[in-house]
């Protein structure tokens, strides 16, 4: 993990030190295509929205805010985006994330590519997202906007942190519900886990998780985090209302008994700074209302 982190820093810093263009990337890029929603939300926030993004309906449901401008081209799946369509957009830069690196040889034939690693095996997605935002700012010629986005996000985080400091809540368990008996829980290394630390909160899930920072678990294991505040994110499956929350085991969980159950609007689990700010605000609004 540490080695990967160092490697990432080296990669990003070396890119940072080089004059733009020397690494083969155009400066500033005018038409960007990204295959990742986290990069897409950042580009929108920087005022340089991407020309094409995969699965736009999915973006609307899982990222929600900031919305993609009308006219953004839907590139199909995030796993196998439509190459002929990307080509027809004539991008000057294609941005992807590590798990899509298998696509690189194909995409390089269309335009220079850049792989931004924010989540996979990084351990501190928030810091990585800040660095990635700087990189994106440099590539789009919007360094000032990038710094502003970083500062703005920091302000929102410290604002929320201050609100939590006034009335410190119990540890927070962030989850996504799969069905009546199963959830994904977010631990060390996930964006939510990282943000909880930065907001001065303890993560309710202390068990080991996958490299991606989350694990699929049976609902019976929620008892291990009974002292937490339970937070789950939309979109919820129909089984949440009719299955999970109806069960006696659920009813008996300490956080349910104490009424510490919160459902938040969607926040992308693999998001970047806009998602981070959104998560901090939504969480503070839910747990410590003004």
């Amino acid at each position, binding site marked *: 993990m540490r080695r990967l982190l160092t490697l990432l820093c080296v990669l990003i810093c070396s890119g940072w030190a080089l004059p733009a263009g020397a690494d083969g990337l155009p400066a500033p890029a005018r038409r960007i295509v990204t295959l990742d929603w986290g990069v897409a939300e950042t580009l929108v926030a920087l005022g340089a929205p991407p020309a094409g993004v995969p699965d736009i309906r999915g973006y609307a449901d899982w990222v929600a805010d900031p919305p993609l401008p009308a006219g953004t081209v839907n590139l199909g799946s995030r796993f196998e985006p439509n190459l*002929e369509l990307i080509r027809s957009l004539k991008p000057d830069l294609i941005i992807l994330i590590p798990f899509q690196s298998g696509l690189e040889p194909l995409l390089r034939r269309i335009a220079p590519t850049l792989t931004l690693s924010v989540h996979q095996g990084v351990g501190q997605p928030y810091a990585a997202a800040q660095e990635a935002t700087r990189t994106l700012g440099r590539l789009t010629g919007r360094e000032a906007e990038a710094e502003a986005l970083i500062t703005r996000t920091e302000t929102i985080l410290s604002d929320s942190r201050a609100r939590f400091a006034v009335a410190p809540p119990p540890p927070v368990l962030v989850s996504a519900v799969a069905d009546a008996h199963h959830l994904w829980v977010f631990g060390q290394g996930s964006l939510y886990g990282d943000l909880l630390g930065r907001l001065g909160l303890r993560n309710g899930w202390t068990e080991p*998780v996958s490299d991606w920072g989350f694990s699929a678990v049976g609902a019976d294991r929620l008892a291990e985090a009974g002292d937490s505040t339970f937070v789950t994110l939309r979109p919820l499956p*129909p089984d949440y209302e009719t299955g999970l929350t109806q069960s006696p*085991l659920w009813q008996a969980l300490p956080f349910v008994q104490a009424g510490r159950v919160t459902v938040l609007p969607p926040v992308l689990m693999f998001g970047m700074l806009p998602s981070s700010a959104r998560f901090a605000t939504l969480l503070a609004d839910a747990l410590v209302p003004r």
Partner: protein
Amino acid sequence: MTLLPSALPRPALLCLLLFAATGGMSVVALQPLLADSRPLSALLLWQGAVPRLASALVCGYALGLSGALFQHILRNRLASPDTVGAAGGAQLALALTLLFAPGLLTGGRFFVAFAGSAAAVAAVLALSWRRRLDPMPLVLSGLVVTLYTGAVSAALILVNDGYLASLFLWGSGSLVQTDWSLPQALTPLVVVCTVLVWLLLRPLSLLDLGDEAARSLGVPLTLIRLAALTLAVTLSAAVVAKAGVLGFVGLAGPALAFVSGARTLRQSLLWSPLLATALLGLTDQSVAVAGRFVPDLLPTGAATAVFGAPLILMLVRTLRTDPARLTAPPPQTRHRLPTRHPGRWLLALGGLTLLLALTALSLGRGPDGWALAVGPDFTDLLPWRLPRVLAAAAAGLMLALAGTMLQRLTGNPLAGPEVLGVTSGAAMGMLISLYAFPAATGGFQTGFAALGALGVLLALLWLNRRDGGSTDRILLAGIAVGALFDALTSILTADGDPRAVALLNWTMGSTYRVEMPDALLTGGIALALAAVTPLCIRWLDLLPLGPEAARSLGLNLQAVRLRLLVLTAALSAAATLVIGPLSFIGLMAPHLARLPGLLSARTQLAGAALSGAGLMLAADWISRVAVFPFQIPAGLTATLIGAPLVLLLISRE
């Protein structure tokens, strides 16, 4: 089980043994909760762990009973909810409902599952009706229907990945419980079904006398069969609706009952459910214990599927003990006259294939809708479209050649590299290399795929060694390998990490990542292997005459078989790397060649090669344009097109 001394395994004893093991394992599983005195632990015990055990037991009973019923009515030891399409049908119906009408699932989960299940079983029965419900075609139809429903579910997941991620979990059959709702819902159903089954015992056992005798005793045969089938479907659909897919339990119960000595219907109906109960209980409790040591969820269904493969292999051995009831005579192929103009037909097929290739290269969808690329556009798009077209055509051609050889070799019109498990073996090799050596290069993966195909091939040869290869046995070994592959995939995809969807794409046979060098390599291998096939034409002409005739005409059967199998494995492995383990091209293409009367080995090989290439070209093109801007893996599209045709063939032959 044949390893046990033959005097020992009475069903009761085996049952006791399994239940004792289950008991021991549950003590280990429940121990931490029993030792803890906090009130929440008591709740976790009584609302979590104990209902889980109860669920495993009741699901096991239901599946075992369902399997025993299927086996008796269909007179087929390989029949079970998994092998007659019941589980697959339920799964697909639930996936479709989750996507298009999630509201229905709240109260109507069981009815959705039942409808899907019943439809799939009805389809399988209708398809094997004309062949008098022969065991082999019936199970093959069931298998194809199961693969088909699985393929459609996979296509849905690929296009809606975020929405159906939980389907991975459910499809792998987790028995985690948070209340008693599952045992409460299933127990009354199981009790009612059991009572009804025992009430039907006498008329059901009269089915053994044969239709004539039973009818003369005044037994309403159709009614009895229909009633028993309804009960079997109800039981398995209820389990799928409540717990997901718990593969092979319904096959294992009756199998264990049989090998431990249960011969009469009464014994089978008594012991099959009990043995299945103990088996699922033991599996589930072991999984629960193992789950403590890994961060991710271990689904029980994936574990049960792992023992499915050895189980089928074991059953294949029992086939010998009761040949009259279980082995079907080799299906007779319909008599056809050879065409008088094979050259014209081949020319027409070649022209059609060329036309398809041109269409795939020039016609596509873009941001402004349909577009025909001509002139400079055509040359611009060529580097994108040509590799796919070339690789798809080469893979189709290789599978078609492999299929033709296998059909002529085994004398079975239902043989094909997909059915024989050779392609599954290759894919399993790739899968293992992907997860065990994530940094491995393409060449390394290719090596693993070849090893996998070779492994399956060796298993086939081993099964083959004694009596020169009964076709049934080879086919069933293939089914077993396919099942093992399914199990591996569902274990690997259960935790829903993003690799799961990528993996799914890739095992479904996507031509998306094929680049020109790969395409040229595939094309080269195809040409090289195709160049070897003329050497086999004499063998392939003589083999369908039967072993005696072939031997008297001077063929060294063992040597010829070995060479043909090696060639087939090479063809299948090379094709699988491009289009994945499923496609049915290898099964279909030889039949397409026979339709116009291309019957001699030479013309059938040529005709099949051209049709195989053409079919795969069409599949790849449809994959690219059908759900634009999304794409479906070409192998999956080939399955979607191919499976119905295969089913048609099974019902016709």
